[in-house]
């Protein structure tokens, strides 16, 4: 019980603490923020969609129960959005939220706990036939209750350390209960929230426009008069848009070359923000195919990689940079560099690692010049440079690798069928949180493309998920990491993506985070001229 009390104190302290004081200019009111969006929203219902093409243009119309602190560069601190405060029961099984009063939907009606319950019921317990993309991340939830108009309670089946942060998910827009009661699919084609901007128009394939909500509950915000999202699929056209000052920013990310060309062309008119990105390319090795069923072979493949040298060189041409373990560097659960170097393939002595790799291959009966096919995704960044780098590294331990590029649309079916020996795998997260990032390595996961079966991983995953003591959780995470990347080498991580946002220096009040799904409400953003 004492450990829960400790956690409770920590969470309350985070929740109630005022945002850190920031030495910054006084926000200026007015102006229209124009930003490029490389993808388009399939529908407008974030509960069921998976692409940032929904979040970027649509998020400013909505609030969520909690949100990630907009100025926190780690993107891991939950703060209240529609929730004013909360408490967690000592057993970690009940979360009670006090809801802000005076929040109105854009149609003028009051927002109450009933709307939050209806939205979360749609996310966690969707009716048959209705898709909810992140439903499985709320398996611990037994019920969502609204005991009075300004209280929401979540009852859990078991304590879950990631639960609070998962409630800050940028996908969990709060919808109006009355609308959902009439038509659960209404939000697929319509917009009506409580957010800082109201909906003006969406011209398919062209642009999305929002204007300032004059009745926004957070008095004094938003600063902008409105925003305009331009859908631009070509990366060169996105760069041209920023360079030609047709757009202030693109929130997903640019390549190092784009950053350099923009900086060179516009000088001080461009501000660059960079962050480790919660996206990573991994190598999946098919455990049902020989010789990749042998962990010595898999270990040899990871030992061959000189990640530190690659970090220096590839970061100049590709959207990758840091050498990392199972969590984004700089975030609470990241592997300390000293510990990372102890894992197979992370040693700074590449000569020794490759000698060990060659020995393991010999021991496993893999002849020198052994050939296999590496299947890569037909997308330039960062798949192509990483693919070429991997092939070069494996050649240095005597392996002969043929790369096969799989067209982007046929790529997932190929992975799911297990139609590969070794293939590029990828993952992008919306919040850096072990539960969300590591679920894919559990034996029964749909993303276990290598088809490994490992009860130890399954147990460690569950233990870390339910550990409420931070140190205890860290211990399980390190054990899981060692098992996954070193002892069994079920997968191998390449380099952490690097998010690069060169934007007009006029844009203020926006802070980069490791996820391109976060910080898109635009309530804190303003234009200096």
């Amino acid at each position, binding site marked *: 019980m004492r450990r829960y009390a400790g956690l409770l104190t920590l969470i309350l302290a985070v929740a109630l603490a005022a945002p850190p004081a920031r030495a910054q200019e006084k926000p200026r009111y007015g102006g229209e923020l124009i930003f490029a969006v490389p993808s*388009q*929203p*399939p*529908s407008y219902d974030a509960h069921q*969609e*998976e*692409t*940032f093409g929904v979040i970027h243009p649509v998020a400013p119309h909505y609030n969520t129960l909690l949100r990630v602190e907009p100025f926190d560069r780690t993107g891991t601190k939950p703060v209240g959005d529609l929730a004013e405060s909360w408490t967690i029961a000592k057993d970690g099984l009940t979360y009670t939220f006090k809801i802000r009063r005076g929040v109105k939907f854009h149609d003028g009606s009051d927002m109450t706990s009933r709307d939050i319950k209806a939205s979360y019921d749609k996310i966690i317990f969707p009716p048959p*036939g209705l*898709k909810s*993309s992140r439903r*499985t991340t709320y398996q611990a939830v037994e019920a969502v209750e609204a005991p009075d108009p300004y209280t929401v309670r979540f009852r859990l089946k078991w304590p879950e350390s990631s639960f609070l942060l998962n409630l800050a998910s940028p996908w969990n827009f709060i919808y109006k209960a009355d609308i959902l009661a009439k038509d659960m699919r209404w939000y*697929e*084609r319509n917009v009506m929230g409580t957010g800082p901007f109201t909906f003006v128009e969406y*011209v*398919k*394939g*062209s*642009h999305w426009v929002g204007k300032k909500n004059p009745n926004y509950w957070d008095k004094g915000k938003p600063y902008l008069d409105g925003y*305009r999202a*331009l*859908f*631009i*699929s*070509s990366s*060169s*056209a996105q760069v*041209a*848009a920023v*360079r*030609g*000052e*047709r*757009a202030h920013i693109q929130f997903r990310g640019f390549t190092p070359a784009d950053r350099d060309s923009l900086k060179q*062309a516009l000088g001080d008119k461009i501000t660059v923000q960079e962050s480790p990105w919660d*996206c990573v390319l991994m190598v999946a090795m098919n455990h049902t195919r020989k010789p990749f069923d042998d962990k010595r072979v898999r270990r040899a493949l990871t030992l061959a990689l000189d990640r530190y040298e690659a970090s220096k060189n590839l970061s100049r041409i590709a959207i990758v940079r840091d050498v990392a373990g199972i969590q984004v560097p700089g975030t609470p659960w990241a592997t300390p560099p000293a510990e990372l170097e102890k894992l197979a393939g992370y040693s700074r002595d590449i000569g020794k690692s490759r000698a060990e790799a060659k020995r393991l291959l010999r021991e496993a009966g893999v002849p020198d010049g052994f050939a296999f096919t590496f299947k890569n995704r037909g997308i330039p960044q960062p798949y192509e440079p990483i693919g070429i780098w991997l092939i070069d590294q494996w050649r240095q331990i005597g392996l002969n690798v043929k790369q096969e590029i799989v*067209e*982007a*649309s*046929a790529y*997932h*079916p*190929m992975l*799911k069928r297990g139609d590969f020996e070794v293939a590029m*795998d*990828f*993952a*992008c*997260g919306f919040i850096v949180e072990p539960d969300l990032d590591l679920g*894919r390595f559990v034996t029964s*996961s*749909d*993303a276990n493309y290598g088809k490994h079966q490992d009860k130890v991983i399954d147990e460690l995953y569950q233990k870390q998920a339910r550990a409420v003591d931070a140190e205890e959780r860290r211990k399980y995470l390190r054990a899981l990491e060692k098992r996954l990347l070193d002892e069994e080498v079920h997968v191998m991580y390449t380099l952490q993506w690097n998010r690069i946002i060169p934007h007009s220096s006029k844009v203020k009040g926006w802070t980069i985070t490791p996820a391109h799904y976060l910080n898109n409400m635009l309530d804190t953003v303003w234009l200096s001229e």
Partner: protein
Amino acid sequence: MWKYLLKRFLLMFPTLLGVAVLIFFLMRVVPGDVVEIRMSGDRGAVSEEILQQERVRFGLDRPVWEQFLTWLWGAVRLDFGTSMWTGAPIGEEIKLRFALSMQVAIMATLVAVLLAIPLGVISALKQDTWVDYVVRVFSIAGLATPSFWLGIVFILLLLIVFKWLPPMVYTPFWVDPWQNFLQLIWPALAVGYRYSAVATRMTRSAMLEVLREDYIRTARAKGLIEKLVLSRHALKNAMLPVLAVVALEFAFLLGGLVVTEQVFNLNGLGLLFVQAVAQRDYTLIQALVLIVSGFFIVVNFAVDILYAWLDPRIRFR
């Protein structure tokens, strides 16, 4: 002539049916699945249960022949269904893009025709002089220059020299003609130049051939002034092959400007086509192919009518 036109008109329907059958089954053979692609998003994994749920929603769990007949019956009634990617009616997806692509096609055709016919005629009349050589170099350069490359050059020049970029959002002509012109003139010029090169060379060679015909010599012999010889007898007859080239290029432009649309960020049919294929949005692809091929067929039919008007041999057949 009526019999000829009726025959051409009736031929349109089996052609469209052939296109419909081909595109429907071709899309089913191509690997990839709209549901899986859409649901995978950036996360990269989605449960089989959710995938199956969506397949049922789109009717993809039904036998292929049943899906085909349902779709064909809708297409016959001009109801192409809804996009499997966005859930929006196909008409809504295509409407604005069609208007934009049509306008670019018309503007590029105007640019091409305004350049090609005078240049082709002058080049033929001044055969093997420096004027002819200049026109030939100009047109060969046009053939050798991809329009998207020229588009990139335009954009870079505008950005570097004038620190200006054309508008990136389409404004319909009737809303703001000047903004509309500022956005579309650049792609129209980039596409129109290559298009004009094809038409210039065709005009030149057709004029050269016609100018050597007996009836031109007869027209000159009976004392007709050169201007009338050229306009009434030579140009009109030389226009037959030029017309075919211009018409086919025009039809192609409707859905074929994929890269140029990307370069100028034009929200046109070409880009929509590529997105639909990448997303395996079956219903949208099928509708787009039918519309573009229908447009091709109608343009061809219009050319047949013009041929009949221009060439008495067809008219009196």
